[in-house]
């Protein structure tokens, strides 16, 4: 048997070791963050915290949840993610279903979408468009511009194509309309694909910060990622040179850590529920009939 050979065993050991290392590389930063969020300010600035809290306290979390800006941003992010994913999935499933059929001009249409994937208008035209349409300072500025993504469309179209045509024909004969077929047959059967694409979109919405900063002129409307960007990344303070003692009021590392930790939780929690669809979803198109 091949798995009894020395070569295989060496390979296995190496394989396990590598996977453990890779796993740790993902897990340890998070653990470090958690430890920091539970430590005292002095211990953190003295660089004494690694993976275990020093000077344990939960102040950072109390402060984080008492911060109305943080809570507002969290809410904005949740609304944005739910609304954005719903709208995107509605558009994508409709478009994907149609484009998985043969009809005149299908390829032209497809190429038109793929064109947008390769060439975008760029920052200035997008900005002008969004402001001219009056979307600025509304949640729609975050949700609508990215609602339709050609890459996700291709994923879905290919998934729909793997569903046997005979199913659809049988439904037709029983008198089903296109919409009934889509909702009763295609959607349940392509759950893995839909779950995968939804997750892509969800994570995308949850993590994107630039559009929030670009289109919102009031920080209280920022989504969470934009809020964190202003709190965490900006505090390198190249420009704080003038501010004298006000620097002392800078937010503490433990609060930043708590905010980052809290903000990653929801998306981490979504993963296990969608993960079981993943393998099927991503290998789509890999196996031909």
């Amino acid at each position, binding site marked *: 048997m091949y798995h009894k050979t020395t070569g295989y065993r060496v390979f296995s050991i190496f394989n396990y070791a590598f996977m453990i290392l890779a796993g740790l590389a993902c897990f340890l930063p998070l653990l470090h963050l958690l430890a920091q969020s539970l430590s005292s*300010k002095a211990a953190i600035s*003295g660089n004494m915290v690694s993976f275990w809290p020093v000077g344990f306290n939960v102040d950072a979390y109390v402060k984080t949840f008492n911060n109305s800006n943080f809570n507002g941003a969290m809410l904005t992010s949740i609304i944005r993610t739910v609304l954005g994913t719903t709208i995107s999935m509605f558009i994508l499933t409709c478009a994907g279903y149609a484009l998985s059929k043969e009809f005149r001009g299908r390829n032209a249409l497809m190429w038109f979408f793929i064109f947008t994937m390769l060439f975008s208008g760029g920052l200035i035209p997008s900005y*002008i468009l969004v*402001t001219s349409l009056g979307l600025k300072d509304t949640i729609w500025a975050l949700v609508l511009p990215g609602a339709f993504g050609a890459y996700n469309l291709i994923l879905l179209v290919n998934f729909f194509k793997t569903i046997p045509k005979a199913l659809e024909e049988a439904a037709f004969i029983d008198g089903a309309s296109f919409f009934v077929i889509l909702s009763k047959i295609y959607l349940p059967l392509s759950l893995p694909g839909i779950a995968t694409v939804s997750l892509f979109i969800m994570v995308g919405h949850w993590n994107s910060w630039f559009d929030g900063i670009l289109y919102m002129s009031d*920080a209280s409307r920022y989504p969470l990622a934009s809020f964190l960007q202003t709190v965490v990344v900006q505090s390198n303070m190249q420009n704080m040179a003038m*501010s004298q003692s006000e620097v002392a009021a800078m937010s503490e590392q433990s609060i930043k850590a708590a905010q980052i930790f809290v903000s990653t939780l929801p998306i981490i929690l979504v993963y296990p529920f969608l993960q079981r669809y993943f393998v099927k979803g991503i290998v789509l198109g890999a196996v031909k009939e």
Partner: protein
Amino acid sequence: MKEGRNLWKMVSTVILSTILVAGCSSGESQTESAPTSVLKDGKYDPPFKITIAKQQDENAGKYINGESLNDNVLTRWGEENLGIKIETTLLGGDASQYNTKLRLALTGSEKLPDVLPVYDTMLVNDLIDSGRVKEITEDIAAYMPDRLREIYKQYPTTFNPVVRDGKVYGMAIAPNLTEGEVMLIRQDWLDRLKLKAPTTIEEFEQVIAAFTTEDPDGNGKQDTYGFTFSGKDSYNTGWVSDPVMIFSAYTGKHLPRQWVNDNGKLTYGSVAGGNREALAKLRDWYAKGYLNKELATQGAWDALSDFTEGKAGIIIGRPWLYDSVKDVEKNIEGAKINAYPTIQGVNGDKTYQSAQLNDGVFMFNKDFQNMEAFFLYYDKMYDAAFSTGEFKYGYAQGYDYDIVNDEVTFDPQKFNKPLEAIQSVGKMAFTKNTPSVDGPGKSYFDLANGVKADTGVLIQSDSKDQTTKDGYRISYENREALLPNEFNGPPTPTMQNVWEQLTTMEQETFTKIIYGNEPIEAFDTFVKQWHEKGGDQIIEEVNDWYTQTSETDVMALMKLK
């Protein structure tokens, strides 16, 4: 073939409709013709709105009591007392995002805010080019209140970036000479090794040598070193973790990365001869382990962590730096930090440091008609700095000061309703920093000389830690050592092309010499190449700019003389 034709039909339809949409909506938005407001008893009636752009720094983003950017204690105050509502219509996070948003606003897709704080000289230039900002020469002459006039008179060079063809397009944001850098030293280490704080480069070398080799923390391990600073972005950060003192000891006023007026001609500090000796010194110290081993990868804000951890013994920074490193006194028993002046130069002169006069400039929308109202509001903001009028203690009781048992306090923990940290109300309107006239720390100097703390500014200064107070007093006593950069104009044409290469070359050469990867002669090669690769051209252009700015006497035009 058919499909091809369909595609083209579709593409042309899309293009056409895009043009239509763009055409419809890019039409000039109508400026509302509001009823003219009249100033009555210091208040406008009916109230009107001034829209502003704001680069939000981290502190400015914090609001208590559920307040927000456009509805907070200061905006409400303005509405109630002056009849002026300040509204932020353009908000940016860090510098690059803010500049991007300003540029996007210039595309004309939306109305430019009335008041624009601009922090980038290139952008200042572009805004003037665009013709969408107001020329304010006469407005300043007509409306600027007297006490502001006195301030702006002191700093004529701050107008240099906003003057074009003898016309003034903006004004510095709250000009005021910044505080200088001091040396923070671990006093307990000095005491244990029976050393005195260094005043010359030789003494400095002795101290950092002892800090490295003689186990100042007494733990029996060689795990400490003398001097920590940052060499990541520049050897002249200008505020914290900075080795400028060492360079200046050999070069005098020619500081790295800075332009200095040398007998009427601007010269660039990094190519001055004395840098060679300074680099040789640093190289020697680095080899002996007296310096931060990772100095080339540590930014200004990272380089201080070794000090806070109790590994390094000396750091340089503005006096408030003590607040950021004092945790070492909590973490390590017996640790004590004291502030000292920077050392003397090799010829017995002072060592110099860079300073700032202002942080950005105010510019105004061409259509903004209420300069008088802006000045009214802006002048009120200075009340806190002058300890006069409504804001004589601070901007808002319970926010940046409080009165407890008839005593004014600036300690947020002692407030009637204790706060985490003081709210920087002064940053809630136009500016990124609260306006100040205290210079490098005059109030601290006065306090040290026995002046009674009876004004807001003095009480506030008096409430700081002793080390911070010492730092500011030292900074004020050495205020002649502060040199603002003499070149504050937009990048010249050659600069736009090659400045980045030149500064990269400079940074790499300096670092390699200190690390010992290149011989000290590399500095001479660098100077030669710097001049050849565009440096000479840049010197010429910078000096042209310098003479041009003094061609028209704009100060007289603005009646600031």
